[in-house]
Structure formats: structure tokens, C-alpha cells
């Protein structure tokens, strides 16, 4: 298995190490690569879009011609990565003119939780119909200038909510979280993504 961490900008090394730990836990053999080019992405079995600034990352995706390659792969997006997975943004997203990949039937609210002053940590409980291993204990959620999902449609499954806001969801082979599992020791969301990727192999 080859997992590519899109390494244009943001918390890339954190995802590399979290994915390696998740692979080890699942007993999967594979590589985790720092992906910058179209071929890095094409050669991978799944891609992680890290947190960072979605405006910057989306500009660099376009500049480097990576969009097409990203349309075909299973993707796990955290924070900025979740914004990029969405079909629709909000006024802020429109203001910055960033292009979204549109892989998930979700509308996101960028910086829904406010500025850095409002960034927070909070325990998350996954929804009753989420996979059992995600529900067995609370997940330590780290939210940094975090977005949320405003609405979903199609066959999107909501995985977690916090104070009524949707903070994690999945659709087909994509997973989006508003929080940063890569900044904690808990690799369960990474494991869930790797399981999705493994199913296709």
C-alpha cells in the first residue's frame, strides 16, 4: 500500500508519522510518501490532504496541475483538506476564489469555529452508526481555526457532531474531519481510512 500525503503546504510530517503508526497497528505493509507531483499522486493508492491554509493549498494544486489526479483516489482530508473535498463553500471560500475538488456532497463553513483565539480541544463522540472501533472511546479532537460541514446531501454519512455541528463525514472512499487526528496519538481515523484503501486493493 502506498499512501501519499499531499505535501504542498501544512502539517505534512505529522500525517506521515500518524499514517505510519496506523499502518503498524493494522499490520499493513506499505509506504507513506511526501507527494508534490502528479506522478507521486498517480502512483499512490490513497491520498491524505493535510491541514494548512486551504486558499494556499488550492492555489498550489492548480499551479502544479494536480486536480485531475486527485479526482481518482481515495482521499482523507483534515481541516483545510476537508474544505478542499467539498462541493460547496461559504462566502469566505467564494471571497478567496479557491477551487474545490468537489469530491463530497457537503457544504463547508470555513473558520466556522472562529479565529485562533477560539481554537480548542474537546472530546468527540462518534455517531451511533459510525464504525464500532471509532465509538469505543472518545476521540481527542483538536480544532484549529476549524471549519464545519453545514449541510450534506447524496449518500454522505455523518460520522461525528459537536454541539450540533457536523465535524466528520464520509462518502464512498473519502473521509473528511474538521479536526486534526494527526496532532494526537490516536490513529483510529487514519486506520479507518487505510481500511477503506485496503478494500480496493
Amino acid at each position: 500500500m502506498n499512501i501519499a500525503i499531499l505535501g504542498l503546504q501544512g502539517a505534512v510530517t505529522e500525517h506521515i508519522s500518524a499514517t505510519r503508526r496506523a499502518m503498524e497497528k493494522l499490520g499493513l505493509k506499505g509506504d507513506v510518501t511526501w507527494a508534490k507531483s502528479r506522478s507521486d499522486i498517480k502512483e499512490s493508492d490513497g491520498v491524505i490532504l493535510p491541514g494548512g491554509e486551504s486558499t494556499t493549498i488550492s492555489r498550489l494544486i492548480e499551479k502544479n496541475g494536480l486536480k485531475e489526479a486527485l479526482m481518482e483516489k481515495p482521499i482523507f482530508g483534515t481541516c483545510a483538506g476537508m474544505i478542499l473535498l467539498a462541493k460547496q463553500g461559504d462566502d469566505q471560500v467564494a471571497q478567496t476564489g479557491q477551487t474545490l475538488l468537489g469530491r463530497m456532497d457537503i457544504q463547508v463553513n470555513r473558520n466556522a469555529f472562529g479565529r485562533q483565539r477560539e481554537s480548542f480541544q474537546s472530546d468527540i463522540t462518534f455517531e451511533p452508526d459510525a464504525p464500532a472501533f471509532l465509538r469505543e472511546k472518545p476521540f481527542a479532537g483538536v480544532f484549529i481555526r476549524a471549519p464545519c460541514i453545514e449541510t450534506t446531501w447524496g449518500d454522505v454519512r455523518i460520522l461525528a457532531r459537536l454541539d450540533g455541528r457536523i465535524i466528520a463525514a464520509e462518502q464512498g472512499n473519502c473521509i473528511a474531519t474538521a479536526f486534526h487526528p494527526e496532532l494526537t496519538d490516536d490513529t483510529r481515523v487514519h486506520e479507518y481510512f487505510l481500511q477503506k484503501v485496503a478494500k480496493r486493493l
Partner: protein
Amino acid sequence: MQTGTDTVKKGFASMQKGGVIMDVTSAEQAKMAEAAGAIAVMVLERVPADIRAAGGIARMADPARIKAVMAAVTIPVMAKARIGHFAEAQVLQNIGVDMVDESEVLSVADEERHIDKRAFTVPFVCGARNLGEALRRINEGAAMIRTKGEPGTGDVCQAVRHLRIMNREIAELVKMYPTLIAKKAEELRVPIELVEKVRELGRLPVVNFAAGGIATPSDASMLMQLGADGVFVGSGIFKSNIPESYAKAIVEATNQFDQPDVIARVSENLGEPMKGMERPDVRMQERGN
């Protein structure tokens, strides 16, 4: 729900990696920086080159100016407080800036001590010329370090010098005989646990950007190749002939720092970089150590 934790502060810094943080003095400049792909903007009354030219005491920017920038862009907004000036930092936290830079670009407010950054919920970035300065700032609560250069000169030499010193000192520490660590910690004036952490990681335990004197795409590429996690560009953009082109080119160069063909392409027909100066009278880098 907890705000202002160490994880949240350092996590914010992690999200900046691979990016360019640009100095701006107005909402218009901030919008231009955002459109060029800046990861964040730093609001000042004047860019460092103009601070040098103006002389006098350099202070925190007017809160109204900072708020105007915050209203104009969606990317994070940072602002500078004088070294040791905790009241300026309190004002910046109150306005709601995303990060405070306790900066040598401004005049020094307290010659004896830096701001106690653990007392704040807003994350701080601080400058450092060597491992000791970096670890002392981290021990005071800095969530991010930027290797100091000589601000406002357009001369990358000092930023290179300090990044190389930092790299060398970390490499020496990693190889150091274990019984010498306690003495080293004492010499650096930081807890031994912090020194052990650097040994374990082989790098600083927080994000480390390069700053001071960066004026061209190649400058950014060089510092990234030397191990910087990202770059701050002060005067280099708005003191160049065509700021918009320079901003875009430096963003791309920082991102594709190890691809000389990309650096070559983005460096073409950029026009005049900032003029710069080789030996400034005021050495800002010596402030706060």
C-alpha cells in the same frame, strides 16, 4: 472545551509549515498577499526597511490598522509586540490576532526579560540566532521560532548564518555524550528535559521558519533547503519593484524549493528586487537574546 492549550498553540504553528508569511501595512497589501498565496500576514506600521529609514522608536501597530487587515482577509493575521512588552501583547490578544510576534524588528521594551508567553492564550513566535536563544524562547512558551536574519536589509547572509549555527548546534547535541547534557542545559539556561527533547527529535521541538533579509525566490529556496519549515518575508515584497510578482514567485519557490527548474522559471523577468544594504548601522538581530 479548552482554548489556548499548548497543543492548540503549537498546532497552529504546524499549519503554517511550507508557507510564506508576508509583512503588510494595509488592508490592500494584505489582500494582495492573500491572492498571491501567503499563508498568513504580519501587520506593521512600516516594513523593516522603512523602520530603519525612519529611525526613532518602533512600536506595535495601530489596533485600527490591524483590525482593518483582519476584516479584509480570511488567512491568519499576526502582529508584532516589542520584546518584553507584555501590555502590547495583551492588546494584540484582546483584538484577536492569530499569533503575536515578539520581535526584534521593533524597539526593545524590557532589557531583562521576554514576555511570559505561557500566561497568554494567543500563540507566540520569537526570533533566535542560535539554539540557546531558541530554547529559552520555547521555555518561555513560544509556539514557534523564526531564525533571525538582519531585517530590512534584503541581505540573506545573516539568516543563513543563524540557520547554519542552529543546525550545527543541534547536530552536536544529538552526538553529545549523555553525561554532558546537564552541563549543556545549564549553559543554555533551560531545563534538561527541553535539551533531551531536541536530542530525541534531532530538531527544535516547535516549527522553525527563516526570516530577515529574504528578497528573492532563490533566497527562499536556499533557506528551505537548509531546513527551514517556511519563511517570513518582510520588506522583500513591498520594497520590490513589482510586489505582486515577487509575492507569487516567493510562494512558489518556498513550495517547490528543491526544484531548480521551478525557481528558474519563477525568477524570470521579476524586475528589480528591493535595493537592500550590506552593513546596516542598527543590528536588530542583537535585540533580545
